[in-house]
Every structure is written in C-alpha cells, then in structure tokens.
C-alpha cells in the first residue's frame, strides 16, 4: 500500500470507522514505515479534536420552533390560529352594539318609508288637484256629449264656429285642426265672474261618436292651480281618466290647454301627438 492509498483511508483511522481487517493491517504497516503518513495522521487527529473542542453547537432559537409550529397550523387550518383564538371568546356582539344597530336599521327604514309616503302623497295630491280642476270641464263635456247641454255656437260650418268663437273670446285662441275630426261647436265663457273681457274658449270636435272638447284660456289669467301651471310650463302633458272620459292638460307659452274626450287616454294621446 502506498501513501496515496493510505490517505484514502486516513479519516477512517482518525474516526475509528470500520475498515476491513486486511486493509487495516496493510494501512498500519505502511504508517509504521512512512513518517509522512504518520505525521499526516497525527495532524488529522489534531484537526478533528480542535474542531470538536472549539466549535460550539448552536441551540435552536425557541421562536423559530414556535414560528414553524404556528405556520404549520396556519397551513392546516387555512387561517392563522391567533385569529381563531381572537374570535372564540367573543362570539356574540355586545348588547348595546346590537341595540344601536337595530335602532339604526329602524331609523333608516322609517325615514325611507316617510320619504316614499311623502312622494306618494305628493302624487296623490297632485292627482286630486288635477281632478278637482278638470271636473267642471269634464261635467260640461259630459252634458254636451249626452245631449243635456248645447254649446252656444253650433253649426255645420267650422269656419263660422271658429269666427264666432274668436270674436267673443277677447284673446287669440289657437286654431286647432284635428285630422278626421270636424269642429262642430264652441262655447265661450267668462273666465272670472269679474273679468268681462277675458274668457275661455271651448271648441268641440266630432268624429262619429267621438267627441273632443278643446279648452283654451290665457295662461296668466286661467283659474288653473299654481302647481298645475308650473307643471305644464315645464312642458309636462298631464294625461288621466275620469268617469269614462279621458283628458289631457298641457300648456303653450300663453295658453293653458285642455282636451277632454270620451275615448281612452291612450287614443287621446295618439290624436294629440299627431297635432303637436
């Protein structure tokens, strides 16, 4: 055995690791003869001893163990264990918090209800208002339609009706032609009991059984309620039905206009939209 082969086993000699007896014998023979290998063996022993005696074992920091165990729990549960602990001792919210929350919900609900009611009431009021305003006119229309009343001007000649109406009105009404309808009559009435000059004009159109009463009055002096005036001034067309009659209220710049008919609201709307 030579030096090179001996060095291959040198660490095993130092560490007293198992070497088969034949090899061990040859190693010992070589080392006994070879001073260099003998020194080398001694130095390696010293090296080992020095490392063993001087290099300390470093203890694991406790927080590392804790941290790893916690992380494993986190992986297991899908959420940190600390969070679980936090939640478990306090499962129900505090009573005062619950009460405050309920109160909040009640307040919000109530205020929403009040808001809805006020909107509804407003609409209801408006509807009532419109109906109150329109009822006299509808009654007038009804009595004409049923033959209980006759308009002052009655003629087969629309031109005559129109001229008569304009001459009595005291303002300039709008001449409205409704397709397929024929102007058959008109009535001109005092707007107010005290205003002799300014009047309102009702034109009556007819097509078969269908009658349309077309009311016009100067917006400024009309008896219309202020709320309705505001609405029609904004360009709103108010459609509704009353006692089987439909009606529409709208406005131009100077005139407040009304149409009443014994047809359905939708049909009235169609007819009026052809004109405007």
């Amino acid at each position, binding site marked *: 055995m030579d030096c*090179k082969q001996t060095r291959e086993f040198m*660490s095993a000699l130092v560490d007293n690791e198992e070497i088969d007896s034949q090899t061990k014998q040859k190693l010992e023979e070589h080392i006994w003869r070879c001073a260099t290998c003998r020194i080398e063996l001694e130095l390696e022993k*010293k090296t*080992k001893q020095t490392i063993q005696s001087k290099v300390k*074992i470093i203890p694991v920091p406790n927080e590392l*163990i804790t941290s*790893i165990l916690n992380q494993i729990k986190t992986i297991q549960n899908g959420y940190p264990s600390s969070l679980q602990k936090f939640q478990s001792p306090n499962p129900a919210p505090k009573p005062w918090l619950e009460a405050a929350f309920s109160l909040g919900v009640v307040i919000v609900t109530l205020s929403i209800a009040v808001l809805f009611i006020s909107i509804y009431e407003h609409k209801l009021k408006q509807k009532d208002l419109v109906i109150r305003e329109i009822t006299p006119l509808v009654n007038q229309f009804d009595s004409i339609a049923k033959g209980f009343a006759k308009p002052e001007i009655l003629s087969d000649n629309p031109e005559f009706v129109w001229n008569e109406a304009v001459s009595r009105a005291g303002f300039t009404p709008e001449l409205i032609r409704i397709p397929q309808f024929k102007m058959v009559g008109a009535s001109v009435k005092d707007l107010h009991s005290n205003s002799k000059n300014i009047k309102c004009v009702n034109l009556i159109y007819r097509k078969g059984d269908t009658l349309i009463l077309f009311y016009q009055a100067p917006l400024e002096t009309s008896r219309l309620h202020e709320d309705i005036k505001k609405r029609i001034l904004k360009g709103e067309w108010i459609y509704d039905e009353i006692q089987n009659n439909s009606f529409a209220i709208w406005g131009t710049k100077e005139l407040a206009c009304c149409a009443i008919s014994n047809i359905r609201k939708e049909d009235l709307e169609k007819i009026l939209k052809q004109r405007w």
Partner: protein
Amino acid sequence: MKLNDKIKNLIKQKKRDKKLSDDELLKKQKEFEKEAIPHMQFLYNFAYRMTGNEEDAKDLIQETYLKAFRFWDQYEPGTNIRAWLFKIMKNSYINKYRKATKEPGKVDYDEVQNFYETVRDESFETSDLQEHIFENIFEDEIIEALSKLPDEFRTVVILADIEGQTYEEIAKFLDIPIGTVRSRLHRGRKMLRRELFEFAKKKGYIKGKPEDYDIDDPEKD
C-alpha cells in the same frame, strides 16, 4: 421527473389534503411535531454552520420544515427521517446558495486533485510548527476557515466533526458511497488545516520563514 408529472402529483397531493378530516389533520400535525421537530437542533446547527449566520439558518430551517410538512405523506414511517429532512434542506440550500456563488466547488476540486498528487510535502520540522497552531486557534477562525471550503467538503466536515455523525449516516444524508465520505473528509480536514495555518502565519502565531511552513502547496509538484 417531468414538470407535468410534478404538477399532477401536486394536484393529487392537494386533493388528498382536502379529503382529510379535522381529526386526520390534527393527527398529521401531531405526528409531524413528534417525528420531525426533535431533529431541528441537528438541522439548525448544520444550517447555521453552512450559511454562517442566524437569519439565513432560520430561513433555511423554516423552508425545510414547511416543505417537509407539505410532503409529509411522502415520508415512509420507520425510515430515516433525519436523512429525509436533511435531503429536503440540502435541496433548499442548493436552490438558494448555489446560484449566488460561482460554482465554487469546481475550481477547488481541481486544486484538490493536484493536492492529492502531493503527499511527500511535509517534514518533521513543519509538523511541529503545525501542531503549535492548534493551541492558539479561536472558534471564529475555524468558522472562517470552514467557510472557505467548497460546499461538498464543508458539508462532511460539519457533519462528522461538529455534528458527530457516522460515515454511514453521512453517506445516507448525501447519497454518496462511504468511500467518498472517507476521502472527502480527509481532504476537507486537510484544506481546513491549511486555512488555519494561513491564519496563524498572518497573525504571527508562527515565526520563521514562510517557506518553512509551506507544507501543502499544490503548485510545488
């Protein structure tokens, strides 16, 4: 293993994990704590000596244990758990540090080959002086000398001389034959000694002409 297979395995793993009931999860956790945690001292010490600092050692151990827990059902009970954990740590270490250093082992390995050809380089004189250096050496000098060794030599020196593992154990940890453990350990210790000798020279522990102590110059032959 191909990437596809790996992904399939991971999916299987996840599915298996999900099927575990709470009791089974708790059992798994307890089992892992009982089996794996006791080896943390050994692994931490090794990690500390390999990385040279507490922070990196902690990171390495943490990564190792979380990986080990994730793949716990791949561990066969009754087999060498320390070797199993060590291999996980070795892979983590290689992934982390191999890339950072420029293949340190390769250059040094050639050096070691040369060094092996050189066996008649020591005399009685120098050996006396060499023995002298061991008395004056400090722990941090050994640590520093150790850090200069290539990974494969450092690993066996730490395992054998600091952690006190047998060659058989080391062979299992590193998946190498016992003969390789033997020769690496011998070379590792010799390289370490040379580093220590350099320290001693620089610090003046040893007096005399430098060539008197130039015991181990691979360039010589």
